[in-house]
């Protein structure tokens, strides 16, 4: 409905202009500035000089970059798998239960509506190696206690666990929507065709759920690849850089070490990674669509 009158066009321009100006000023322009900044070396005193791709070269030679990339990817994959499995399991339960009473609804959305920072604070106490309830529970069933967030070995799975606690219900709701959109008559046909519960799940439910799982994957990937809040509040990237993701590293390079040029290069690289992942995942989603 693009109106043809000049007056209407003018009105549309007036309505849309503020948001467009805002977007240009606070999003588009800064975006370009950062890209440009990636090619600069910025002195603390205030000068800067064009150094071409030196920042990127430095990045590729920086062992902390590579370990950061590894941590980011491992954390991403571990969290994603945990959330998809837990979320699908929860979705199946909710689907079978058919009804969702008010208290359950409120409980389901609480984890991901919480500030991630608060989740971090919460789990700091629960997972504290000496006074935390988690170790107490482990010991009371005979399992050895863990250092959780303080252990370079276990910090990444622990953080993945915290994020899963927060976001598995979100994934579950999306997958539940997918389950509810599957035509019921297809299941009845499967019943008549003689498919048992497990076979129905493997041959019918799961393949038909793939597009929904792909959507949930894309939605979570955008956040998981840029993991920040929980790490910053709990471990700040430690212990010994074991939880130092690219996003945390980039932030610290910029605002603790004040190397703006290098931080810009890191930020641009991370953006490219996320964009690439989303495009790839989108292709995969189209491949499984029915």
């Amino acid at each position, binding site marked *: *409905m*693009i*109106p043809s009158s000049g007056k*209407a066009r003018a009105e*549309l321009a*007036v*309505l*849309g202009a*503020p*948001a467009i100006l805002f977007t240009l000023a606070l*999003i*588009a*322009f*800064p*975006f370009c*500035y*950062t890209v440009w900044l990636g090619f600069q070396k910025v002195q603390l005193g205030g000068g800067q000089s064009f150094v071409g791709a030196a920042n990127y070269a430095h990045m590729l030679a920086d062992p902390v970059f590579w370990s950061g990339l590894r941590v980011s990817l491992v954390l991403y994959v571990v969290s994603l798998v945990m959330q998809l499995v837990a979320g699908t399991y*929860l979705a199946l*339960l*909710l689907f*079978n*239960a058919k009804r969702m009473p*008010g208290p359950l*609804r*409120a*409980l389901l*959305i*609480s984890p991901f*509506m*919480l*500030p*991630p*920072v608060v*989740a971090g*604070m*919460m789990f*700091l*106490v*629960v997972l*504290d190696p000496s*006074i935390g309830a988690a170790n*107490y529970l482990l010991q009371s069933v005979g399992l050895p206690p863990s250092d959780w967030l303080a252990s370079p070995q276990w910090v990444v799975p622990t953080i993945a666990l915290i994020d899963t*606690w927060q976001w598995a219900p*979100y994934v579950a*709701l999306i997958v539940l*929507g997918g389950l509810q959109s599957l035509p019921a008559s297809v299941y009845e046909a499967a019943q008549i065709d003689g498919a048992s519960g497990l076979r129905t799940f493997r041959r019918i439910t799961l393949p038909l759920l793939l597009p929904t799982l792909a959507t949930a994957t894309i*939605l979570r990937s*955008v956040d998981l690849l*840029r993991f*920040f*809040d929980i790490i*910053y*509040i709990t471990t700040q990237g430690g212990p010994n850089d074991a939880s130092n993701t690219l*996003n945390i590293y980039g*932030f610290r390079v*910029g605002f603790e070490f004040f190397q*703006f040029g290098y*931080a810009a290069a890191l*930020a641009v690289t991370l*953006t490219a990674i996320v964009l690439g992942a989303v495009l790839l995942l989108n292709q995969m989603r189209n491949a499984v669509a029915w």
Partner: protein
Amino acid sequence: MERPAWLRLLTVVQLGIIGIVILAPLGWMVLSSFKSSQDVTAYPPSLIFAPTLDNYVHLLGTTPFIDYARNSLIVTIGSTVLGIVLGVPSAYVVSLTRISWPALLTLAARMAPGTLFLLPWYVMFRELGLIGSYWALILTHAVITMPIVIWVLLPSFDAIPRSVLEAAQVDGCGIIRSLWRIALPLVSAGLVVASILAFVFSWNYFLFALVLANSETKTLIAAAFNFVGEGSTDWGGLMAAATLIALPPLLLAAAVQRWLISGLTMGAVKG
């Protein structure tokens, strides 16, 4: 064939267990906020203890908690209002014209780490002398709220039958007036949801205030870090702070839970 009763019971039991898993850390947080410093560091941790309001009294009385809360409110309400002022008209324009390149741009922006924008923003606001001002925070948080407003309201605007808007046109209503008199009243429910979600996500946002605020304008979320820093000894205070910070978003989320859940399950809520 209907599902046998024992299978239904099993489902309910499993849901119950999951409910406990979700509730447990939250409950522990609230519980711990009422523990004295001995009880909170006691091991093995206890469910039964003498509750005390000391942590809250200390938090609200001696720390700048109230100031931070006030800052958070100013920034969150301000950015929500700004998000609505910017987002509502542009959502309407997109709905009418289907030209959506600004929306695509903000979508791409969503994929960038916060640092990508913080670096230039820091420089920009430093030049303008706005570091530490509320304006810096409100403007940057609006980058979070405006897309939420657009993406909640766009389907609502799309749901208005074109014929209603055309009838308004024939009646002599200009586009701006049709937004104000016709479209907006029709999407009032969506507006409420958009405002609440914008508020929650702005309140929860950590990164920008960390860098762009000074000690006077720091928001609660960013200041939470302070509580952790010194909080390694004051667990009770940490939990009290966490409980208070979590309250507004959780209460507001409860207000829109039905909409949120139906939106997520119907695939309309893309985040």
